């Protein structure tokens, strides 16, 4: 299980995260919501090892992984689907997938590949095509598929709704929720689109100016009108 204690991150003089603590339990989706600039992506990038924290501890299954690089963090079972187009358009669909988890055994990789293809059948149909031929929604599926190829216990999903049609977002998020429930995957979902995120999540965490302001059952967070007004602006 991924555990975060008192995490602080700064970009030069700018404090992006202050004293953030959270856990990402298995078998469910934990949603982090907040306005633009709240520190959501910084949190994800720090957990994945792309950004070095200033203070605090990150632990995976009890092991301290604070300050580890992304290529080491991913080997502990944490896979990030970064914001935006995180596929490589110059490679084929299959190559994009096979890039994930190359350190794993052949059998593990084949099992993951089959699982990804059963989750996202369109990827199998298009596996020999260039990733640049995919639509936005298919590309997001491919990005998630690549992360799953790393055999994660914890999946970090950064803003999967970005630039996608609402219907596709709902489909993808429900699939992720189902996957978490059925396979025991721990999912940390970051979203600006709070309504959709809280619908699939069990726990909701609201981030504002780099601090956690509310943390609780997703349904409570979704129902709290005052909070929505204050931090999410709708």
């Amino acid at each position, binding site marked *: 299980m991924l555990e975060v204690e008192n995490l602080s991150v700064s970009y030069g003089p700018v404090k992006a995260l202050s004293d953030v603590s959270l856990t990402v339990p298995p078998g469910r989706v934990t949603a982090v919501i907040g306005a633009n600039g709240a520190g959501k992506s910084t949190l994800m990038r720090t957990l*994945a090892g*792309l950004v070095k924290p200033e203070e605090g501890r990150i632990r995976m299954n009890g092991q301290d992984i604070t300050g580890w*690089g*992304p*290529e080491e963090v*991913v*080997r502990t079972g944490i*896979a*990030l689907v*970064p914001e935006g187009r*995180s*596929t*490589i358009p*110059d*490679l084929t669909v299959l*190559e994009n997938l*096979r*890039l*994930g*988890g*190359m*350190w794993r055994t052949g059998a593990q990789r084949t099992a993951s590949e089959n699982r990804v293809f059963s989750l996202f059948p369109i990827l199998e149909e298009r596996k020999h095509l260039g990733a640049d031929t995919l639509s936005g929604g298919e590309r997001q599926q491919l990005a998630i598929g*690549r*992360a799953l*190829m*790393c055999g994660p216990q914890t999946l970090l999903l950064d803003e999967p709704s970005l630039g996608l049609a609402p219907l596709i977002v709902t489909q993808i998020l429900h699939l992720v929720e189902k996957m978490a429930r059925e396979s025991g995957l721990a999912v940390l979902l970051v979203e600006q689109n709070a309504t959709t995120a809280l619908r699939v999540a069990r726990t909701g965490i609201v981030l504002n100016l780099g601090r956690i302001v509310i943390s609780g059952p997703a349904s409570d967070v979704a129902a709290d009108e005052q909070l929505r007004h204050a931090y999410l602006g709708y």
Partner: protein
Amino acid sequence: MGSFLDYFLGGIANGAVIALMALALVLVWRSTRVVNFAQVGQAMFTSFIALTAVNITGSWLIGLIVGIIAGGILGFIVHVLVMRPVRRADASGAIIATFGVLIALQSLAAMIWTAEPRAYPTPIEYAGLTIFGRVVPLTGYDVFVFIVMIVLVLFLTILLTKTKLGLSMRASAFNPEVARLSGVRVSRMLAIGWIIAGMVGAVAGVLIAPISSLSPNTFDIFLVFAFTAAVIGGLDSLVGAVAFGIGTGLILSLVTGYSDASNAPIVALILLALNLWFKPDGAFSHHKARSV
């Protein structure tokens, strides 16, 4: 004055060595997005080491093997000592650094082996083949170089497109962040790119040396030709580098044959300028504008 056919055959032979050097340039570009102007310097330096091995052992083959190993080691050294530190600077900083490496290697070679040109032996007799009772300017050695080039291109293509290592290298070049998130040790892939390019450059050097003779500066002109071929081929494409390496060799041979050898570099630069003017992504480039 020879015939068109003579120039044509001579051009293909010249083109094969240009293609080999262009391949090395493409390999570094593909793995690190840096044009390595030091490539000919590395090839020259490792050819001197190879020649030393040939002189000691008397075996051309041992010279080649020693050269390839030395080429890999030198590529790694250049990567660690020069390219890794300057990577924090911008791309032009890295390119200028490769010029620095070129000058340093040439000076060092002149200090160790003097600036005097030396002959480099060939594994096959360097004499024109007789075709239909007529001696043509294509030697058995040229044919050998051509075959080595084909084998090397096939090997590299399979390595880059069919193996895990190749996929890791390509992904590291296209998108280092996604590669790292996928578990690829990107800094290691960059080093491997420099090592492989150094080895290919060493093969090119050992094959060019008998034709041009070996001194700290005799390979310089091949940098101009190979750079032209690699850029016209799109810098990303092994096939492009080979096709335009041979093409450049042909054109230069015809220019040399019908006018004067001193015009060849000018024509190469004109080709380069025309290409940059009309098709800046390279003739074989299948990518749209990429912002790396």
